């Protein structure tokens, strides 16, 4: 073996190890930076995507609002000359009739009939899903509920013959069921506000034992 061979060998090994070590370190560092860039890119991407989702939510809400406004306008335009007069003129005596039902079987009975009236009024309106959807009154079931036929014949028949079956539910429900008067208001109050809305007149409580009268 030549003189100094071991020195050269050891030196070469050391240099090679050092070079590989430096290469490994620089590669790992580059990988780490790339990985960080990838993570950052994903964060930015989903940040923008989240902005898009918020924009989409706002857009859909705006579209819904605009559609509701358009529906309301069309319904108002279509029924302005028919619905307020017919419905209001029919609704008031019906409400009064129910309210002034002779207390022959006790106050609870009159109260029950009144409650049933509003229950069916609301359920009918809630059941109308759009234009042209007919709604049949289950008078037999109603009679069973209230235990008689007088309300069926007088109140319900008049009511349902008056309300057109093509009233847009959104228009009515916005006013009656989802009106901004809270959930704890009485049906009287809701119907009053509804009647005001569809008639365009303020309605005040009368002193002649009627529920309401026109101002």
């Amino acid at each position, binding site marked *: 073996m030549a003189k100094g061979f071991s020195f050269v060998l050891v030196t070469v090994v050391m240099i090679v190890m*050092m070079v590989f070590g430096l290469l490994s370190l620089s590669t*790992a560092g580059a990988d*780490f930076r790339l990985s960080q860039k990838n*993570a950052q890119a*994903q964060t930015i991407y989903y940040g923008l995507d*989240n902005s898009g989702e*918020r924009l*989409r*939510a706002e857009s*859909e809400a705006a579209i819904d609002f605009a559609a509701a406004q358009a529906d309301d306008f069309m319904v108002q335009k279509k029924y302005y000359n028919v619905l307020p007069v017919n419905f209001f003129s029919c609704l008031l005596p019906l409400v009064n009739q129910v309210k002034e039902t002779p207390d022959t079987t006790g106050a609870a009975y009159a109260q029950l009939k009144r409650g049933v009236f509003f229950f069916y009024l609301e359920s009918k309106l809630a059941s109308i899903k759009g234009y042209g959807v007919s709604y049949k009154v289950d008078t037999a079931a109603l009679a069973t509920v209230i235990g008689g036929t007088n309300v069926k014949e007088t109140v319900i028949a008049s009511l349902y013959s008056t309300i057109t079956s093509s009233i847009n539910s959104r228009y009515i429900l916005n006013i009656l069921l989802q009106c901004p008067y809270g959930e704890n208001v009485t049906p009287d109050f809701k119907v009053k506000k509804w009647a005001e809305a569809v008639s365009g007149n303020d309605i005040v409580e009368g002193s002649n034992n009627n529920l309401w009268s026109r101002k």
Partner: protein
Amino acid sequence: MRTTRYQSRDFGVLEIIISVAILAAFSVFVLKLFVSASTDEKKVKQLDLATNSAVTYIEQFKSSSSPYEICSTLGAAAPTSGSFKKTIFIDEGIQAVIEISEDSQNAAGSIYSMNIDMQKATGESVYKLNGLKYFGRVK
């Protein structure tokens, strides 16, 4: 009297000690390089795994038709009310803390948020990602 000076051709103790010391110093330096590289590679693996897992969960959430549909995929029951939170252990000492809750709502629907915090076993956060998904109301 003639004195004969003995000249050895072998390494002396001092030379051996010095050469070993130099070798050791080099070795330590080189080993440090490899250890640093290995540590960095481990970090890269963890960050890549955390990023990819978080993106996968977010994409599953965004492709679902209801906010808590992903709960069954995660092996948990959907909450009846409030928010959903679950920790899932992944590989490489990484765990994902997934939270789903309602972010905001309007008349047309709600925006649900999925927050993912990818953590080490020690609880140290590696990567966080937030995804939103808008769920419109059924009309």
